[in-house]
């Protein structure tokens, strides 16, 4: 069994050897996912750029795509699918803000998917204007008491842990009075109620928090620094998306191409042109994502990463709109709207289900309108809009 020598920065060859050893010993086809991902974590391959003992090898981040690719080629899962929010947003935050004891308690079960994570940010009164949220955190001895209501929380009904933003100081402007916590969802006072989506499934929830206690060790970052911590995780999410490498003709556009090939009887010059235009945009988007990935591994955060979410989400929507058109009358059918049916977008009406699901892509994780504001103000440095709540203590903002 190869191990990386302590004190030496592992190179690509070392990572590859370690990965091949793990995969040989735990063939993905016959190993339960939690065991496979556990072995992967213990070998330091989950996040090669994390410290040793925490799922990493102190290696350069640019080597992560290599590890992911070897896993994929061996038939293993795309890591994010094991614990979407855990991998996408939480892991990097834990690494940066948790004590070593807490980090070693949390990271392994996160990596294996045994403990799923969810994000308790949005509220009925605070969506795009997340910093305006109302949920209160009040000091209580060595810890905090949390009270409020969260909403649209994906996978909260299956999660053991949550990241949570709450207001610790209502007397300062909205961004300054927030603090970032992690919450054990099994704590008394937490109530999770699934909400049904337009797809028929119930993948997101409302979460009620009633005087929920959490110890101060579960606070990440300083009191009042919650907005900064939350933004650092958004950055992580963007770069972690960059660890994925996509091939020409894969993903949504691959669905459209396959459908086109399957339905010669529905072909027309207009549909052919529309498909070509979508293909061109998908290619330009794929290449821009590649460019963002290369820039990120070189330590440059270019405008590319701010753009890829916006373009990708709108493109995905338009591709499935196209697919529905191409389906013709068949597009009027759906297999089931049962809330219990698996949310895996497969089955005989997979295209219809993906079409419905794609309506969320331009809302979740920041709406397209908000992202255009972000690109305008943070990337292009355009003047800010007049904001009615600017500089005013949160308590005095109309809501």
């Amino acid at each position: 069994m190869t191990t990386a020598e302590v004190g030496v920065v592992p190179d690509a060859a070392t990572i590859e050897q370690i990965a091949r050893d793990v995969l040989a010993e735990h063939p993905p086809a016959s190993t339960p996912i939690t065991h496979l991902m556990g072995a992967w974590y213990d070998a330091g391959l989950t996040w090669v750029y994390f410290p040793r003992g925490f799922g990493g090898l102190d290696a350069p981040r640019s080597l992560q795509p290599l590890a992911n690719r070897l896993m994929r080629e061996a038939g293993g899962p795309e890591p994010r699918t094991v614990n979407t929010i855990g991998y996408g947003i939480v892991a990097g935050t834990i690494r940066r803000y948790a004590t070593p004891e807490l980090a070693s308690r949390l990271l392994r079960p996160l990596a294996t998917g045994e403990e799923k994570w969810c994000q308790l940010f949005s509220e009925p009164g605070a969506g795009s204007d997340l910093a305006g949220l109302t949920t209160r955190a009040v000091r209580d001895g060595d810890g905090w008491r949390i009270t409020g209501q969260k909403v649209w929380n994906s996978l909260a009904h299956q999660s053991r842990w949550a990241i949570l933003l709450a207001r610790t100081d209502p007397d300062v402007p909205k961004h300054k009075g927030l603090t970032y916590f992690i919450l054990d969802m099994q704590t008394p006072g937490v109530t999770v109620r699934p909400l049904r989506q337009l797809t028929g499934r119930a993948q997101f929830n409302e979460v009620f928090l009633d005087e929920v206690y959490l110890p101060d060790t579960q606070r990440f970052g300083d009191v009042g620094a919650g907005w900064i911590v939350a933004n650092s995780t958004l950055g992580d999410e963007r770069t972690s998306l960059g660890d994925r490498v996509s091939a020409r003709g894969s993903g949504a556009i691959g669905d459209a191409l396959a459908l086109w090939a399957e339905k010669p009887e529905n072909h027309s010059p207009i549909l052919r042109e529309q498909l070509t235009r979508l293909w061109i945009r998908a290619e330009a988007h794929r290449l821009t994502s590649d460019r963002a990935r290369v820039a990120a591994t070189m330590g440059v955060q270019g405008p590319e990463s701010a753009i890829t979410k916006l373009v990708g989400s709108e493109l995905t929507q338009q591709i499935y709109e196209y697919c529905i058109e191409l389906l013709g009358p068949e597009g009027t059918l759906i297999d089931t709207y049962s809330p219990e049916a698996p949310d895996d977008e497969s089955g005989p009406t997979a295209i219809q289900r993906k079409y419905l699901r794609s309506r969320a892509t331009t809302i979740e994780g920041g709406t397209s309108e908000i992202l255009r504001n972000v690109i305008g103000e943070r990337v292009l440095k355009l003047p800010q809009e007049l904001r009615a709540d600017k500089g005013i203590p949160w308590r005095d903002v109309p809501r």
Partner: protein
Amino acid sequence: MTQEFEFTEEMKELREMVREFCAEFSDEQTVRQTMETEAGYDAALWQRFGSELGVFGLAVAEELGGAGLGLVHHAIVVEELGAALVCGPVLGTLCLAIPALSALPEETIRAEYLPGLVSGETTATVAIPQRAGEYSPDDLSVDAVSDGEAFALSGRLDYVADGSTADVLFIAARTPTGVALFAVDSESTGVERTRLFTLDQTRRQATIVLQNAAARLICAETETPDVLVQTLATATALLAASQVGGGQRMLDATIAHVSSRIQFGQAIGAFQAIKHRCANMLIAEEQARSAAYHAAWAIQDGTDEPLIAASLAKAVASESFLWISRSAIQLHGGMGFTWEGAPQLYLKRATADSLTLGTAAEHTERLARVAIDEWEPALV
């Protein structure tokens, strides 16, 4: 070797260097003056770019006066010249002739022409029959006859980039056994050049009529088709890089304008209708940049099908540059519609670029053929 999209420090410095040189010696004022002259460019300045700055031969082998760095470097130079609308044979010499000559099999011929083009002392252009940026032998309009020793060309060539000023014309012509590439001295008898009045005054064209013009064979029938295909793919990718440069310049100008123009008591860039259009301009620009540099890297390193990469680059960059320059006019308001304002120059360049070496629609159609009609699920 760099991996795709690995823009190194040295590339950044190259970009800065060309940009500063353009800002100093080919600012907008200079461009406006030069575009009104008969020649349409300043030969002395062109030569300074080639010799003093030394940026014309970055993709040319060192033994031929170049730097041997590759097409990505060359594309960066072309992008910056496009950003500044530098007058001169960018299309004829940098996009077409240098790549064509570099692709020639015969070392002695390359050695004869390339050093002069690289130093900027001579200029050239290439006339290749093409449709949608794709070599099209059916559209050949020039015939070559040989008396056993020398060749003579006859025929008519339309829309020849930089045709009225180029010293050497590289022309594809039909011979009894196929298509070959010839060099014609533009001053020789039997060459009649007529300057055309172009919508984009910074990019000149000519009609050339040949009547038994003395020609020299530089590439035989067996090799010529490959050379022409490769030249067109490379030129198309380079033109896309130039479009990226123009788009970036108009985006920057627009951002500067909407950040300082005050209406309703605030900078107009604070209004979402303006801000979101600017965000969309940036998105369009970045998509074009990715596609154009993918093509440059792909042709340089052989990592993608050159025709697909070049068509993708040209289709995306044409639409982006056109849309960005039209948006620039809109967001500049009345200023955007004046002769004095910069946006008009870029709109005209964007229009001309989009119709040169294949329109966006033509490249889209070509991609429809290779990416949709011939797509095979098993190959993905």
